[in-house]
């Protein structure tokens, strides 16, 4: 394992209660500081399970996870403040306004007062939500909800940010704004762990990619190195299809 790794995963296995086989089968990898790490795989590959374990949502069946040098499930309380999550599903209170949602989540991350208010204003401005900030989220478009969903995960300036398909179901404009600001965050020192089905986006956005299927890591490396390692493949999508085959998934 590298000394500059911010996340180190070793032999990680997760078998859910009543499941016939594990969702994640002994995977090991590390994520370097300041990396944009793409965890790519078809439906049911084990991406969300892996991210959920890394966020501390539930413990692994076996294996270890070290975040910033600390064992995740032994030191969860000190790790939680440095991580942020942008879940695949919109995790907001629909009857509250964007500002109220962000105020609440900001407080939950330990922010308060002027600092919290200025961060909320800053992010609302960046993502073009200032005028809609005092309207209930329920009336927002899909793209606007995604943008608020993103702000709720980054308000506290996390050192590690988990993004589970952050641009799913949004228009090109919203997607570009989201990716732009994620790159900005990365430049400021945030390590990003990202999952997506959008291969072109991943190819452009990620500095390192792991392709996972049936709970196992199939390959990993920079997008360019993976394309180069697979003759006949001219982009990440063809590499992905080559490794995971074209069979439909549930």
């Amino acid at each position: 394992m590298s000394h500059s790794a911010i996340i180190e995963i070793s032999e990680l296995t997760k078998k859910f209660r009543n499941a016939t086989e594990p969702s994640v089968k002994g995977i090991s990898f590390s994520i370097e500081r300041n990396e944009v790490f793409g965890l790519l795989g078809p439906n049911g590959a084990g991406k969300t399970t892996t991210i959920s374990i890394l966020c501390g949502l539930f413990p692994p069946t076996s294996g270890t996870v070290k975040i910033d040098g600390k064992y995740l499930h032994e030191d969860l309380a000190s790790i939680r403040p440095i991580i942020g999550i942008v879940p695949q599903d919109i995790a907001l209170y629909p009857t509250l306004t964007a500002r109220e949602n962000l105020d609440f989540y900001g407080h939950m991350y330990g922010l308060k007062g002027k600092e919290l208010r200025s961060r909320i204003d800053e992010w609302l401005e960046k993502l073009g939500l200032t005028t809609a900030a005092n309207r209930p989220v329920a009336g927002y478009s899909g793209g606007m909800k995604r943008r608020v969903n993103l702000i709720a995960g980054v308000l506290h300036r996390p050192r590690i940010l988990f993004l589970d398909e952050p641009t799913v179901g949004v228009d090109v404009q919203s997607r570009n704004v989201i990716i732009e600001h994620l790159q900005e965050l990365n430049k400021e020192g945030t390590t990003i762990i990202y999952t997506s089905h959008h291969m072109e986006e991943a190819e452009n956005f990620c500095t390192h990619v792991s392709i996972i299927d049936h709970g196992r890591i199939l390959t990993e490396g920079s997008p360019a190195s993976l394309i180069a390692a697979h003759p006949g493949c001219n982009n990440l999508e063809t590499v992905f299809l080559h490794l995971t085959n074209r069979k439909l998934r549930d």
Partner: protein
Amino acid sequence: MISKLLATIRKEIWLLLRDRVGLSILFLMPMILIFVMTMIQDAAFKTLNEKGIPVVFVNQDRDSLGSMIEYGLRNNDLCTFYDSIDGQPATLESARKAIADGKFLIGIVVPAGATAAIRENVTALIAETIDNSGDTTHTDPSKVAVIDSVEISILIDPVTKKSFITSITSNLREFISEVKTKIMFETFSKEIAEIIPDNNGKGPRNAFQRTQIIRYNEEYASRTSDTVVPNAVQHNVPAWTIFAMFFIAIPLCGSIMKEKSEGSAFRLHTMPTSYLLLTQGKLIVYVMVCLIQFMLMLSVGLYFLPMLGLPKLVLGHSMAGIAVLTIATSLAATGYGVLVGTLASTEQQGAIMGSLSILLLSALGGIWVPTYVMPEAMRQISVFSPLNWSLDGYYQLFLRQGGLSDILIYSLKLFLFFVITLGCATAINKWKRRI
């Protein structure tokens, strides 16, 4: 920590205020429930205590017994007197038919010759006694026909509840028996006066009054001098208030389930904030809702029900007792809501689980039917219902004029219930996350 708790409280208040329909239902429905239930139960109460029970009287006797019963019924607070049906004097047949048709609740038929029979029995008894004593100057006992008994028929509407009929007929029997005794004494006095004339040539006066040696005085036992008379308001307001307070479990459970289904719970689980702190925020807000509910429902008993002619709710003497018991009840109700919300997997599941279990606990707790009329086995079970602890506590304060010390045990039980439900919810939440 405090800032996080305040933010959670603020968020819960925002969520509640945004759902105005839900909020108004939360406050208005229990108030309407108290109105309806108290009015219904007060009507039942009035049937027993005020003019209202329609009684048809058939007087075939046309003598003292019939007249005295008629007089008694006409001047009784218990019933409304009728001696005719559809403009025709009531007969045994027409009374039976009218009662069967539900026009009257009770019919009383005094047969012809009933008074004469009583008198003849007394006369025969005196004659027999004198004859045995050797005095033959008076009535010849062989000439007196003795009738074994007089049959007064009490006709009852078959749809009337047994317990209600028992209560009414026992009153009637007692009254008729009193009338019969009076006639017997009058006859007896008259006969004796004939045998042994007094100095003034009059019979013994007030013979009947002197027979009423035993009188009954009913009073409600109370520790203080000012007794609270139990009535529909005193019973119903606390009972339905507790019921409504426990129903807070459903919106609370709904709020927990919504957080799960809308994804907020997922995000919250990844944040540096404990489950207990998030739950505390909810509890504080919902306890406040419970307290507002309580005050509104109390105001129904104090101000609104009296406007409708119902008795005013008497709160007793211990405001501290009311405060402690109400907070304990609110905590128990919200703790239960958190437990149901943690146990349920979907909003529908939570709503069904919450409402049915509260109905069950309230039925067991004596909200619907007093526990003392329950079978022994149910009475044993009822002591495990938190609604029963709360109800007993409020009865101590409102009906028995108890103080803080009298409700401490109930409050303690409710508080323990809160701690246990919250502990279970925390453990279940932890277990559920170990998927």
